[in-house]
């Protein structure tokens, strides 16, 4: 490709359109702020706060599973409520919101060289609607009957029936309303992220010079804009079933010896709608993690990312393929075997671009100048965990293997490894990496290493044994496992062990939170570019970046984001906004 110098470039288009809103008061500067960086911090703080609730719910679940019968207050109903809220919060309100709303808002404008998102006002609304969604969700804990206990998949008919906690109370109504609000809020933010990447870049920043972080977040946002509609529709329809007595998802059904008013609906239709959203959702969480981890590895191994082009195309291919695999979550729903064959095939094809990415990460590390900083440790942990979780995905993607393993702890272990632990490890790595830019100070190193080792090893000790429990046939979503034949004594011991590990790992997260707060004031001064990184967010005149990001002049981009250790260059990194040729760069032509 041609080296785009300013002379050839289209005249700067950002000037006419980018009129920043200048805050006049404390309220418009820090609360109702239109600055993407403030919105990012708001998104992240809210997501982490609600994530903390989900973490505590997981402790309660582990109390019950590890020490059955000991804690009277955990009734089966309460257990189902914990499991539902834990899953929904972690997947949607924590991971999706933190990756796209948090990292997306902070990093996209800075990394593409924009002053802000293209429509800051809409971006601000996005956060406030998200907060409203979270509040509605939280309110269900205090509603009569408590939150819904339908499982995070909310399958009808049970989700809106009497036997399910919250089914005929407020729980399910608040859950569905909260999801609808979340989708509306996300759409407002998501449109901003997509248009900013497509149309708001600075001069010289071609799409093929974007850092992979932006590619991951961008593709995930596009996917979310196309996948969330299915969930939106499913929520609206189930809300109508519950409130107006329609029968979209409700077949003729007898409850407690009484024939219900419903007739002729299709529960399978809900499953299709849900998983048409639900599978892309896995990659909505995974792709930003892929992107971020690529940048962490490249920066901390002081080496260009291996196969940049291939990495980009793999992200796009994964994004596209993930829309045609959804029914692999429904192998046991009684579908036509040829359907199963089709979806198993597409599922396994996704392993190809994913494997390309893993190879490229490893090849980036190969003979790199690896600095075992905390972000790097988390990135390495991610690769290991992701490969592990991905391989069990190959088990579950095959119909014949999936059928016996379906609804066992094996599934729980699989998806926690691949879309729970792996992306969370990246989030931690990313926070240690970008915290200095957000606050101007480093996070404490000792606490960080403590946090890393406990979290990484602990997560393995929690989820690895679960695979064995699953292979033994221990079912998931059972509140009581005491009197089952398959629950041997050793299985019980294993469960107690997992629970104790879960508490330890949870404790380590408190240390992390302490570190986050403590370092704002007491952390070591970071300077503008502590990791000696090339991307634009590290080249801002101020740290933390001021409103408008880049001072008077927007940076001009002369190179890709991965000019590390270029032979002949004075430093081992060349920022993207530095002109001139220093030696043989590996930027793809």
């Amino acid at each position, binding site marked *: *490709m*041609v080296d*785009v110098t300013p002379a*050839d*470039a*289209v*005249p*700067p*288009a*950002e000037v006419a*359109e980018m*009129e920043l*809103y200048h805050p006049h008061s404390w309220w418009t500067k820090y609360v109702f702020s239109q600055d993407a960086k403030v919105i990012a911090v708001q998104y992240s703080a809210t997501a982490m706060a609600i994530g903390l609730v989900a973490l505590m719910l997981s402790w309660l679940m582990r109390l019950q599973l590890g020490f059955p019968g000991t804690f009277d207050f955990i009734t089966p109903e309460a257990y189902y409520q914990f499991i539902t809220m834990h899953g929904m919060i972690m997947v949607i309100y924590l991971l999706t919101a933190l990756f796209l709303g948090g990292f997306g808002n902070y990093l996209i404008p800075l990394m593409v060289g924009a002053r802000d998102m*293209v*429509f*800051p*006002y809409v971006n601000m609304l996005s956060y406030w609607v998200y907060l409203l969604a979270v509040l509605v969700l939280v309110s269900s804990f205090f509603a009569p009957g408590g939150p819904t206990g339908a499982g995070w998949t909310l399958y009808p008919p049970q989700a809106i029936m009497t036997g399910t906690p919250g089914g005929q109370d407020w729980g399910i109504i608040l859950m569905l309303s909260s999801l609808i609000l979340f989708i509306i809020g996300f*759409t407002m933010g*998501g*449109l*901003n992220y*997509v*248009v900013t990447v*497509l*149309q*708001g*870049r*600075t*001069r*010289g*920043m*071609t*799409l*093929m010079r974007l850092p992979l972080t932006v590619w991951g977040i961008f593709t995930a946002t596009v996917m979310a*804009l*196309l996948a*969330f*509609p*299915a969930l*939106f*529709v*499913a929520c*609206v*329809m189930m809300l*109508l079933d519950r409130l*107006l*007595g*329609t*029968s*979209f998802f409700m077949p003729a059904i007898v409850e407690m010896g009484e024939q219900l*008013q419903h*007739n*002729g*609906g*299709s529960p399978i*239709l809900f499953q299709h*709608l849900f998983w*048409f959203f639900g599978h892309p959702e896995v990659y909505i969480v995974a792709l930003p993690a892929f992107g971020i981890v690529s940048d962490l590895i490249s920066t901390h191994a002081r080496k260009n990312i291996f196969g940049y082009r291939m990495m980009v195309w793999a992200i796009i291919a994964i994004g596209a393929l993930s829309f045609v695999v959804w029914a692999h979550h429904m192998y046991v729903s009684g579908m036509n075997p040829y359907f199963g064959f089709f979806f198993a095939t597409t599922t396994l094809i996704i392993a190809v671009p994913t494997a390309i990415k893993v190879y490229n990460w490893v090849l980036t590390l190969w003979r790199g100048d690896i600095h075992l900083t905390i972000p790097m440790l988390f990135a390495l942990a991610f690769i290991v965990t992701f490969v592990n979780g991905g391989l069990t995905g190959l088990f579950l993607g095959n119909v014949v293997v999936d059928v016996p393993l379906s609804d066992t702890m094996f599934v729980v272990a699989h998806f926690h490894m691949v879309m729970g632990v792996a992306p969370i490890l990246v989030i931690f790595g990313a926070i240690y990496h970008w915290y200095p830019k957000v606050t101007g100070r480093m996070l404490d190193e000792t606490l960080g290493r403590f946090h890393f080792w406990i979290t990484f090893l602990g997560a393995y000790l929690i989820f690895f044994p679960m695979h064995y429990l699953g292979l033994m046939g221990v079912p998931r979503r059972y509140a009581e496992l005491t009197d089952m034949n398959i629950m041997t004594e050793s299985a019980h011991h294993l469960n107690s062990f997992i629970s104790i590990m879960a508490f330890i790992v949870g404790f380590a997260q408190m240390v992390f939170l302490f570190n986050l707060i403590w370092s704002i004031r007491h952390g070591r001064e970071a300077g503008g570019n502590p990791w000696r990184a090339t991307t634009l967010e590290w080249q801002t005149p101020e740290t933390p970046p001021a409103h408008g990001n880049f001072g008077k002049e927007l940076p001009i981009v002369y190179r890709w984001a991965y000019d590390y250790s270029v032979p002949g260059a004075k430093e081992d990194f060349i920022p993207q906004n530095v002109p001139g040729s220093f030696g043989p760069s590996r930027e793809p032509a």
Partner: protein
Amino acid sequence: MAETTLTHTSQMDRPRGLRGIAADWASDQRAFKNVSWGKAMMWIFLLSDTFIFGCFLLSYMTARISTRVPWPNPSEVFALRIGGSEIPLILIAIMTFVLISSSGTMAMAVNFGYRRDRRKTAILMLLTAALGATFVGMQAFEWTKLITEGVRPWGNPWGAAQFGSCFFMITGFHGTHVTIGVIFLIIVARKVWRGDFDTGRPGFFTSRRGRYENVEIMGLYWHFVDLVWVFIFAFFYLW
């Protein structure tokens, strides 16, 4: 603008074939060279909204083909008794005519907007809004008629219960879109009338200056709502 961009890009020798296409899309600053941020955002929103209506319609089709109870016959249900004879689908025909006409007036408004003819633009936009409001009004009439005949979201006198639920849900969701469109048409028409796009008066909430292009962006949304109606019309009333 279009010409300068073309000369600029033609000065660069670009790779041929698929690589050239990729290079074009990935090129500097903007993927779509002459598309403003607002227009790009509206197109992407409409794409997302298409998926919402698509999911609604697919769910309706699933319900309709999988029900074992007969589906009410639309040409009888949606007939009006005018002058002693039942005329099938007459109301829907008028509604469709009204909505498609409103797309025509919208297109004219866009045209006059780019000619900076404040008066004609505003009048045509208000006319579009009036036609849209008429459409919603007729929809309200249709709903009332069906409700008095005993159609409910949970059942109806003629067959599958999903008929009423799908009908109210889908036309209701579309009607909401039209209503929101009418509201925004009035807001934008007011801005045009007041001359905001000539004087560069900043928006009340966004503090951004509007341009006559906003009329076209509004038009994109309006034509989309119109297009969706064609699909609802075909799949719900003509099937």
